[in-house]
Each structure stands twice: as C-alpha cells, then as structure tokens.
C-alpha cells in the first residue's frame, strides 16, 4: 500500500486498516484467476481454426447481429422509459421502477418462460400474432426479444441516473427561451445525457451478447437462426472442449473491450457537464 501511495500526488490519510489488503487481494484473485485458468487451457496452435469454423462464425455473426438489434430496441424503448421515471411524477412511479428493474435479478430462464407465455403460439399476444400469420417463438426475432428483455433495465438504470444528475435547470432555461418540450428533448436533454446513454447502450449490448438462459428457453438452439455464441459454447463443451474454451476467450475479449470503453472515465464525469469555474472576466 505504501508503494502505491507514491504515484502522483501525496496521498491523503485513509482510515482503511492495512489487513484489508489481504481479503481484497483474495477477492480480486477470485475474479481474475478463473479467467487466467481458462486462458491457460486455450489450444493456441488451433485457436484460429477453432474460432473460424463454420458453426463458430455463424454463432458469432448471429450474436453480433441480434445484440445490435436488441441494443437499438433498448434505446427506442429505454429512453422514453428512463425519461418518464426520472422526470415524471405519478402514482405508482416507484413500483414501476422496481418492476422494470426486475429482469436484473430474475433468473433468465424465468424470463424465457415468461416470454414464451407472452409471444409463444399459445401465449397472451402469441395467439393474436399466430392468427395474423406471425410466428415469433424459436425464431431470430425471439432471440432479439429475449436479449432486449434482460438488457433493457441496464440502459434504463444508467440513463435514469444520468438524467437525475443532469437536473432540470438547462431544460428550464431552454423552455423560457421559447423551446417547446419536444425541442427541449431533442436539442438539450438528449445531447446532455449522451454519455450516459452511450454507456447504457454499451452495457445493454454486452448483456445481450452474453444472454443464454432466456434465449435457450424462448428461442431454442437452431444453428444460424437462434444459436448465439453462448449457446454454441455450451454445446461445444460436450463435443469439443477446446473449441468451447477458444470461443469463451473471444467473449471475454469482447467483454473487456466493452467494459474498458464504458469505465474509462471515473463515474460522475460521464454524467452532467460541469459549469466552468467562475473567475474574473477579462473580455
């Protein structure tokens, strides 16, 4: 700890006891060690061939396409939801927030079952859709819906926080300058929360990319149609463990890129823009 303290500026006193370092190190190792163990098991000479096999490429391509689609869907549905939760004042608002965040804590399999009873052939909306000739369950559309279901709360949560931090003062200024609410949203609110929206979208994309349980339950596992990368990894583990490990590493790499791009800046700086410090004017 002492060695760390000498980096750039003199460290302020902290009341953290020295022994905390030991459990903290164990905690960090608990997360990093399994990743290292997996990386050590990669069959590097065959790595290229394993990750570029026909089924791997099909799964990777499908994952990227569906995750992109569900991210777009998350933005279209999540931005209005976050606005209503952050700015609105209505009865049942807290309950709505709690329910919207439910997929964060729900086992994804349960989400898949719920989606099946909504959009499946016998489902709540599915019956109507079937009559209209639309079949959703066990299609690529089902994959996108499953991913959106689990990823939406990430975007809503991130954006709602940014909206609250940004506050309403700029919106009030814009309104008194004559801007109608839609103009305020387009020219002031959205541009101001763009960093929060971007990090929310990245999180939603990452969560979509890793989706497994709800996808398997609601969309099944058809190569090229619904078998995304996590499903492919799970399947390959039975037949070709080396391929599963190689593909896992690809997902880890994607996750690292995503996390790095989101958490590069310390939290708070991504949120509301700060006022320039008042100083003497010399116009």
């Amino acid at each position, binding site marked *: 700890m002492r060695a760390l303290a000498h980096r750039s500026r003199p460290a302020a006193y902290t009341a953290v006891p020295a022994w905390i370092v030991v459990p903290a190190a164990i905690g960090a190792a608990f997360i990093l060690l399994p990743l290292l163990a997996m990386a050590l098991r990669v069959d590097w000479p065959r790595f290229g061939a394993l990750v570029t096999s026909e089924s791997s490429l099909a799964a990777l391509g499908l994952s990227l396409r569906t995750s992109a689609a569900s991210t777009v869907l998350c933005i279209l549905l999540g931005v209005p939801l976050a606005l209503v939760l952050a700015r609105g004042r209505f009865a049942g608002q807290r309950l709505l927030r709690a329910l919207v965040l439910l997929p964060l804590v729900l086992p994804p399999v349960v989400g898949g079952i719920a989606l099946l009873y909504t959009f499946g052939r016998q489902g709540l909306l599915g019956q109507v859709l079937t009559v209209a000739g639309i079949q959703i369950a066990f299609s690529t559309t089902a994959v996108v819906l499953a991913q959106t279901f689990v990823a939406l709360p990430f975007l809503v949560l991130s954006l709602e926080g940014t909206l609250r931090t940004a506050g309403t003062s700029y919106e009030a200024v814009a309104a008194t*300058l004559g801007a109608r609410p839609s103009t305020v949203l387009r020219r002031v609110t959205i541009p101001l929360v763009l960093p929060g929206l971007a990090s929310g979208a990245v999180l939603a994309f990452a969560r979509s990319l890793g989706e497994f349980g709800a996808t398997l339950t609601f969309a099944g596992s058809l190569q090229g149609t619904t078998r995304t990368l996590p499903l492919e990894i799970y399947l390959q583990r039975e037949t070709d463990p080396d391929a599963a490990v190689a593909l896992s590493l690809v997902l880890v790499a994607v996750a690292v890129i995503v996390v790095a791009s989101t958490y590069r800046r310390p939290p708070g700086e991504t949120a509301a823009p700060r006022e*320039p410090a008042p100083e*003497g004017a010399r116009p």
Partner: protein
Amino acid sequence: MTFTFEATVAARGFDVSLALAPGQTVAVLGANGAGKSTLLAAIAGLLRPEAGSSQLGGTVLFDAAAGTWVPPHLRGTVLLAQEPRLFPHLSVLDNVAFGPLAAGASRRHARETARHWLAEVEASALAGRRPGELSGGQAQRVAIARALAANPELLLLDEPLSALDVHAAALLRRLLTRVLAGRRAIIVTHSVLDALMLSDAVVVLDGGRVAEAGPTREVLARPRSRFAAGLAGLNLLHGTLGPDGLSTAGGQLVAGRFEGADGVPAGPGAAVFPPSSVSVFLAAPHGSPRNTFAGVVTELEPHGDQIRVRAGDLSAFITPAAAADLALAPGVEVFLVVKAAEVAIFPV
C-alpha cells in the same frame, strides 16, 4: 399593454401582486427567502401558483380561477439566472441562436440574429468558442445576449451579477444599463447600486409579501421597510460628474470607481459607499487615493457590535474602543475618510 401579476403559493408563504408599465424596469429587493425567486419562477411558468392571475400585454399567463395556465415556452418571458447556464454542448453562437431557432427562424437567420446580439454585448470574438472555455464574466455576457435574442416581452433577471467578481460585475452592470433601457424587465438583486442604476421602480419583498414599493430614488431616499433602510444606510452623495469624479453642490470633489458608460463622465451623478468603509480621524490625514470629508458629529448610535457615527449626511461604522479613544461626542469636529476604490460613482 401593462404586465400585471398577483399570486399565492401557500407552501412558500408567498402572496405578492405587482404591475409594470411597458419599458419599465423594476428591481425586486429582499432578504434571502423573501420570495424573490418564487416570484420569478411563477412569472416564467416554472412554478404553478394555487391562486391568482397574471397578464402580459393582453395575453393571460395564468388565471387560477379560470384554470388557465400557459406553459413557459409560450410566455415570452426569458429568465436570466445567477449562473449563465449556457448549453455546454453548443457553441457560443448556437447558444445565442437557440431562442430564434426555437421560435421558428431558419438556421441562417437565427445565426444572423445571434451575431447581432453578440455584437451588442461586445462578445462577437467569442462566437466560435465552447461555454467551457469562457470566464464567468464572458459566460454571463453571452447569457445576456442569448436572453435578448429570444426577444422577450418581459426579461426576468435573478441576481445576474452576484456570481461575478467586482471587476466583471462593474463591466456587466454598465452593459445591462445600456440593454435594459426602454425594455420591460424585473431584476432581483441584493445591490443598491443595481437598483439605482438599472431600475425605475423598486419592490421590497419581506416574508413573501410586498413590504414597500415605489420609484427607486424615493424608496431609497425615504425607506419605510427595514430591508430598504439597511440598503439606504449607504452613504449617497449627489452632484455633477467630471473626469476626476463627482463634484458635490458643496464644492467637494469625490474620487471613485466610475460605473457608468464609456466616455468622459458628465452630467448629474451620484456617489455611493458603505459606512463600513469609512474611517474617522480628528485631524485631516494625507494620502492621495482617499476622499476626506470634514464634518461635525451629530449623532452616535449602536449598530450591532459597532457604533454608527453620523456627521451631516454621512455616516461611518467604528468600534466602541475607537469611539472611546477619539472621545467622540456630538459637536466634535471630525474628518471622515474613505478610499477612492470603495466609492462607486455613476450617472443618474
């Protein structure tokens, strides 16, 4: 075409009514929590009063009895706050063009209007900058241009100079004097200088109610409310402006900071300085940047833990110990001394 306002906000103990003629600027004075910000928020439409009504140039802003309430963007009232609140993602030019664009002007026309108002506040050189690159005074200058570019029927200013240092505030006060001339505006302020230079009339709020209202000079010359009296406790001298300062009717030349427009000062003016900046001597001291006024003590009275020494029209705050050392009493001849830097001189 007058502006009328009367409203009640029970939760804030607010119950105020006032009226403005076209082209009139009213200064709203009052202690913190007196209801000044509530007043501006209710006029701008950012807060909905439970009772009352308001009209601006024939259009109803709100009428609680009739259930009418016009949203902020349709009111023609622009609010300029203590912080400039420039949109950080837009350039200075696009900040100023925001109002005209929102009103439906084309982008080219809106930017033309923005350039005009930036020139008007002498900030044309800043057009391409981002708000984050401006000093506090520059940002508030741009905020004034943005407010005026929206062409408000009624301009609302909420302590627009209080976040600035003395130098920047003096420059902007001069600017506001120019742009507010002939414009209908309500300015909330703590400063008697702002009230004297910028307003035709004064409304003093106390505890959410109007304690006193009237023409600025009258209210400050003969204050009835405690708050206005505190403000009017300032030393105020009238006279004629000249290049070296203010010449009083008694022939005394008062040196100070000139707060008026650019150019050689001339015509009727006034000098203002607080009693706390005045020192009392028994013999005339020497030193060029100081103003010395000879006088006779007329009155000594306690003022907090200090003593207010009155000598004719002027007064000074000194400690009881200093008063004892000088053996001050009514009838004693004294010299009141104030640094030129503490004196504000402006045209009236």
